[in-house]
């Protein structure tokens, strides 16, 4: 939900509640005020009628709702003495509406010539259902007009005032740590956006700084760790060329060399992962996955032949991926290597490429692997001592870098790795 709809949603709910409550109080206040005013009028009418009775003697006989807005009826003295003014709502037939309409009725009593009379005075009042209806429609219109104004004003505000914000958002989206040195922000007079721009700029600056020092560190680590390793290996190789050595010595040297080579591989893999995760593989190019897979299947045939493994390649589509060429090769070769290394003797590997995914399935252990664990670092089955346990972690890092999808499944006694390039 974008900012515009969000404000609109909350405003519309709040306004609805506020306007409803307000309408409720407003209605009762207004009715009260109207009644008060009508009752004042009735009281005045009462005085006028009583005065009229005093001055014109025939008033009492002529009174009646047929001709006037009052009626006079004689009552007993006892009744007249106890009489109190009563205001109430009533319905009367009106000629113009030809229907019963609401009226306000004042019932009171007065004394004239020692006789007591009951006086009823009426005044037309508001039709409450009409009032409610009118009020309701009025408020609905108000509500709609307010919402439309909010929408229009908000829209305009978002377009005008929020420009720097959306510009910043676009630039942040396009920002690449391995390529950009900093971020350019737009001029703005809004204090919050100014602050946002400054904060983002300094954050980006810091991140770029950290990134480059991290990069430096990785380069140094490669230099510092690999060189002594290589020197140790080279020295051992020179030592192994010594003619005086016995077979036992040579065998021991061979073991140390193998261990050091494992350490070298481990170091290389770790550096590779951190290089991928630090996005230091910049240059993208269009890589034909089909051609790459074909080439690597041939390259790995020696490796596969050792275990009498057959590799079948099946292409039902073409994939062109925009990625770093070296990483693409590492991705596919790690998967192929895995499929061979964890295979059984005379096993099978089937490589399938369709229009959007690469599927590598292989025979191997008869039970499925734990899909939550296999892509973690140093997760390996104990059977293969020499493996670094980083092969699939590297694959995962590459997949994550490019936003592809990687999944594992076990079907028809085969372990399947699926890369979705979409």
């Amino acid at each position, binding site marked *: 939900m974008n900012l515009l709809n969000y404000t609109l949603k909350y405003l519309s709910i709040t306004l609805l509640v506020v306007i409803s409550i307000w309408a409720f109080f407003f209605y009762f206040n207004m009715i009260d005020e109207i009644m008060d005013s009508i009752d004042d009028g009735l009281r005045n009418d009462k005085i006028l009628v009583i005065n009229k009775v005093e001055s014109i003697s025939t008033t009492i006989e002529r009174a009646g709702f047929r001709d006037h807005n009052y009626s006079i009826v004689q009552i007993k003295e006892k009744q007249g003495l106890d009489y109190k003014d009563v205001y109430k709502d009533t319905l009367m037939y009106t000629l113009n509406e030809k229907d019963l309409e609401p009226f306000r009725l004042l019932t009171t009593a007065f004394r004239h010539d020692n006789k007591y009379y009951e006086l009823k005075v009426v005044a037309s009042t508001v039709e409450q259902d009409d009032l409610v209806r009118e009020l309701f429609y009025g408020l609905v219109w108000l509500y709609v007009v307010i919402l439309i104004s909010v929408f229009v004003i908000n829209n305009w505000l978002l377009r005008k005032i929020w420009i720097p914000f959306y510009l910043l958002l676009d630039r942040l989206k396009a920002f690449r740590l391995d390529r950009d040195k900093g971020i350019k922000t737009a001029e703005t007079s809004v204090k919050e956006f100014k602050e946002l721009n400054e904060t983002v700029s300094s954050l980006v600056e810091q991140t770029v700084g950290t990134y480059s020092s991290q990069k430096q560190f990785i380069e140094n680590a490669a230099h510092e760790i690999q060189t002594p390793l290589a020197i140790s290996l*080279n020295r051992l*190789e020179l030592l192994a060329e010594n003619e005086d050595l016995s*077979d036992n010595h040579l065998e021991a040297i061979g073991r140390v060399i193998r261990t050091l080579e494992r350490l070298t591989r481990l170091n290389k893999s770790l550096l590779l992962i951190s290089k991928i995760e630090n996005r230091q593989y910049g240059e993208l190019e269009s890589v034909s996955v089909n051609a790459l897979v074909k080439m690597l299947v041939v*390259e790995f045939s*020696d490796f596969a032949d050792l275990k009498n493994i057959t590799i079948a390649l099946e292409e039902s589509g073409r994939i062109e991926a925009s990625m770093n060429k070296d990483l693409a090769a590492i991705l596919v070769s*790690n998967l192929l290597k895995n499929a061979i290394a964890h295979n059984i003797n005379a096993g099978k590997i089937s490589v399938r490429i369709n229009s959007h995914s690469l599927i590598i399935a292989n025979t191997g252990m008869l039970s499925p692997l734990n899909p939550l664990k296999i892509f973690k670092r140093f997760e390996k089955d104990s059977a293969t001592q020499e493996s670094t346990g980083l092969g699939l972690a590297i694959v995962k890092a590459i997949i994550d870098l490019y936003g592809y999808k990687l999944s594992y499944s076990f079907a028809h006694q085969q372990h399947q790795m699926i890369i979705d390039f979409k």
Partner: protein
Amino acid sequence: MKILVVEDEIDLMEIIQQSLEKENYVVETAGAYSNALDKITSFEYDCILLDIMLPGGSGFELLEELKRIGKSDNVIIISAKDSLEDKLKGLNMGADDYLVKPFHIAELTARIKSVLRRKSLNGKNIIKLADLSINLEEREVLIKGTAILLNRKEFDILSYLIVNKNRLVNKAALAEQVWGDYMDQADDYEFIYSQIKNLRKKLKENESGLEIQAVYGIGYKLVAL
């Protein structure tokens, strides 16, 4: 043949020196920029191994000086920097080759020999060893004058072993050379063995005086019987 090794890391310099002396080269060393500059300007070398990061200056400056006096064509840069820019810079400045550290000694030997061959044989890339002659350009192998048929990998292994004759070549170095980068992470190098087996068979069938010896799980060695 005289080779100058410009490298500030004493350990690595020693190894390179020892290894090259086994190949009967005369090896001189320089551990710093000024030292190297003196030797470059005063003496003639058949090949110069040049590190880029040196105390007192950069290998690129030395390379510039070499180019100025017309001696840059036999330089092999050895650097820990694996970036494409550095490689291009080095090669554009006239270096003959660029080797990224760490490297296998066998690989260094092969590169040095390639530079030397180019210099001395007028571009003819033929190596003769005992009764075998191998043409690296035509990818042709003759034993006692008879051509023998090798597949690409067998040829690559054989030529690498011949360049490093009588030396122990590590399996990892061999795998990297012949199978490329994809195999350097391979957990074992058993797959090399089947190719070696085929090569041995072909050498034997043609009664060659050369033999590939296995050295205790470490690697292989080509010797003339």
